[in-house]
Structure formats: C-alpha cells, structure tokens
C-alpha cells in the first residue's frame, strides 16, 4: 500500500500543475487533461512498483516525460492531417468503412513511430522500397547513390522497425 501511495501522492501534488503546463502549450483543457493523465500512467509503467522510490525533483522528472508526450502529440496531429488530406485526394471509388479508416490510421501511427528517428535519405529509400515496391537498383538510380548505399539504408530501416516490433 505504501508504495502505491507514493505514486498517488505524486499525482495528487502535481497533476494540477502538469495540466496547466500542458494547457499553456496546447490551448485545449481537455487535451491537457488527457496528456497529464498519460504522463502519470507512463511514470507508473516505467517505475515498477517494487522499485518505486520517492523522486527528488518530481516536477523536473515529470516535465521530461511530458515533453516527450507533447512532441508525440504534435507528430500524431501532423500525421492525422496528412492522412485526411490523402483520403480527400483519392478519386471516387469504393468507400472505406469508418472502422477500416481507423485501423489504417492506427497502423500509420505505428509505422510512423518506428521511422521517426531515421535520417531523411534512409527514410525515403525505405518508403520507396516498402510502399512503392521499387527495386534497390531503381531506388539507387532515383536517389543517385550506389546500390550498396541503398542496401545499407534498408538494413538500417529494417533493424529499427524490427526492434520496435519486438
């Protein structure tokens, strides 16, 4: 009980502060409340109950996690906008169900998170191969680099994605 309590004390003492921290950056109180909750959930998940120790600088610690969530949040927003634009730009054809749209969106978020830290050329080569189905030779020609470089890029891309899948 005592350990669970220290997590709860953290929540009680800092949640209002954290919510206003988010609100000043997002403008929306509901999103701010959601992200503040997400921050605490992440703290809880990362800190195993058995190893729970009181934090020396709780707000500095919370701010680091909150910042990461905020960057993710912006990134997700930008993805959602691109997604809706892509849907709107499609020619009239079979309509996709709301549910499948949602699933595809989630898949995109997931892959996007895997690719986030890849350098731009690696990411580009990776998408040309995985989405367009271009051969390594075709990608090399298009990007004006050697096939060996493309293979290195692909290796880097796959390693990162596999690590994220596991």
């Amino acid at each position, binding site marked *: 009980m005592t350990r*669970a309590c220290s997590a*709860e004390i953290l929540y009680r003492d800092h949640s209002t502060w954290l919510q206003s921290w988010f609100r000043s950056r997002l403008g929306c109180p509901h999103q701010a409340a959601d992200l503040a909750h997400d921050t605490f959930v992440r703290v*809880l998940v990362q800190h195993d109950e058995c190893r729970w120790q009181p934090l020396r600088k709780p707000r500095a610690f919370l701010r680091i996690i909150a910042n990461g969530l905020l960057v993710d949040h912006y990134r997700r*927003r930008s993805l959602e906008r691109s997604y809706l634009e892509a849907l*709107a730009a499609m020619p009239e054809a079979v*309509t996709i169900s709301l549910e499948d749209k949602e699933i595809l969106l989630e898949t995109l978020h997931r892959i996007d998170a895997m690719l986030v830290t890849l350098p731009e050329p690696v990411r580009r080569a990776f*998408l040309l191969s995985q989405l367009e*189905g271009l051969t390594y030779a075709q990608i090399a020609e298009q990007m004006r680099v050697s096939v060996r470089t493309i*293979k290195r890029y692909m290796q880097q891309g796959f390693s990162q994605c596999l690590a994220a899948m596991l």
Partner: protein
Amino acid sequence: MSRGHALNQPHTPLPKAIIEEAASWLVRVEECRLSKPEQAQLDTWRSQSPQHEQAWQAALQFKGLIGSVPACVGNSVLGRQYRTDRRTVLKSIAGLAMAAPAGWIAWEQWPSLSADYRTRAGAQRQIDLPDGSRLMLNTATLVDIRFSDAERLVRLLEGEIDVTTAADPFLNKRPFIVQTGAGRVYALGTRFTVRDMGDGRIRVSVYEHAAAIQPALSGSETIVEAGQASVFDRQQATSPAPHHYQVPPWTRGQLISDNQRLDAFLAELGRYRPGILRCDPAVAELHISGVFQLKDTDQVLDVIASTLPVRVNRVTNYWVTVTRQ
C-alpha cells in the same frame, strides 16, 4: 503506443546483433528470390534459437503491417515533411475538422491477398471471410489474414480469436490454419478459440469437432477434441483437459470465474479495459466466483467492491487500483 498489454508483462529485449541479422536477411530476401541453399541457410539461422525465430517472426509481422498500407496513402502520410513549428501544428488541428473523406481505391477487393484486422481494449469484432468462415476477435487483438491457393491462413499476432470454419469452396480443400508465435493450429472441424497469453504460450479451446496443435519446434501433433483445451509453447502442448463451456463465454459478453484468485480475475478483467488495473498484493489471495458482464467493466469493479472487503481506487479512469478496504 498502447497495444493492449493492459498489465505490465516482463519483456526481455532481443540482443541487437540478432535484430541486425534478421534485418540483413530481410534485405537479402527482398533483393532477389533466395536460392535453395540460401533458403536453407535462412532456415538454419531461424532454428538456431527461439530468439532468432522471434526476430524473424517480427520481420514477417512488420511486412504484414506495412503491406496493409495502400501505397498512395502511405507515401503522402509517412513521407510527409514534418515540422515541429507550433503554429503549423495548430493550423493543422483546425484543418482536421474540415477535411472530409472522399473515396477509396481497391481497398475492399481483399479476398485476393491479405489484410490486417484489429480491436482495441474492450472491443470485439466479427469478420466474415470469403470462404464462408467466420472470425470473432476478442479484446485487444491483431490478426493478419492470408488466403492463397494452397491454404487459408490466419495469423494471430496478439489477443484472442474465435474461429468457425466453413467447408472450403475450393476444389483442393485448402487447410484452415491459425499461425501463432508458438506454432500452428489446424482446424479439423468447425469451432475453436485461440488465445495468445502474451508470455509465449497459446491456449486452444475446442467447442465443436477438433483441432490439431503443432508447436513450432516439435515434430508431433496434439489433437484437441470438442470440450477440451490445451496450452502450448514452442516446444510442446499440454495434454488436453476439459473446459466445461458450450460456447466461449466472451462471445456472449461474459466473464465467468469459479473460485478464482482476485489477482488472476483482475488480470483477466484488465484485458477488457484501456489503461491500468492493478491488484494490491494484500488482497491478491481473496477468491471470487460469478458471471460478469464485460460491456461495463466499471460496474464489475463496483460489484467486487460491494462483495469483497476491498476498495476500488480510481486515480483516473485509466488507472485503477484495488486495495484492502
């Protein structure tokens, strides 16, 4: 990203070297079709250890995932220029409300090849397959469906499914197979469930006719008959034991417990809720029996609080702890 692991599970990361090797195999496979000796090399590599195979399964899962994204959407979304400039982001939020979906290409032509289906925590979903078979996805489940000329393959990547097979309309009577991280389950009749326990073990419960379990690293099959269940990992399957149910309770929206430990019960209930549901070790050994409705898990928690000497602490709705009263 939360993918349905409601409660923390121990997770040992694979050595980086193995991931790198799996990635370099993927590069080779994609560069050109593997020759027979190369294919044999890959098979040997995969069988070197469970971790090798695990990395390779992750590779296949990734291919399934990215393969489910239509190129036109993927390119503009994943290839977008991303700016962290806040003003752009705020504008984009305003834009969200206005853009309307227009249409789709070839999305529903799927019986041809493959598709991914998923449910969130707390959701269930029925999928009618092109051969007349039916899949029911339980909470937090991810499957990948691949029908070819040779087989009807459903890959269970996460969660639990209820399978009701139909006789194959194809002349060659393609086998119906559920592929899991621990091995394959062959349908020998009509109805069974397969559940990924999240710890490398898979549970198979049969309701009509029979199913055969083929653990990945075992040469022998285990037949599970109607009314029986078996749990298997990559090495072996337990001998089938009776399960006492006519239909899977969750397909009727029920969670049934019979003198179950409270921590086990809450772990089960937690599968059906987003967020975290924790059990204080001080009350873990209390026991509980009953038939509960899954559609309102908060109500189930209230029932527990009123029948057992426990208190339900809702720090937030996504973070609930059950402690001593």
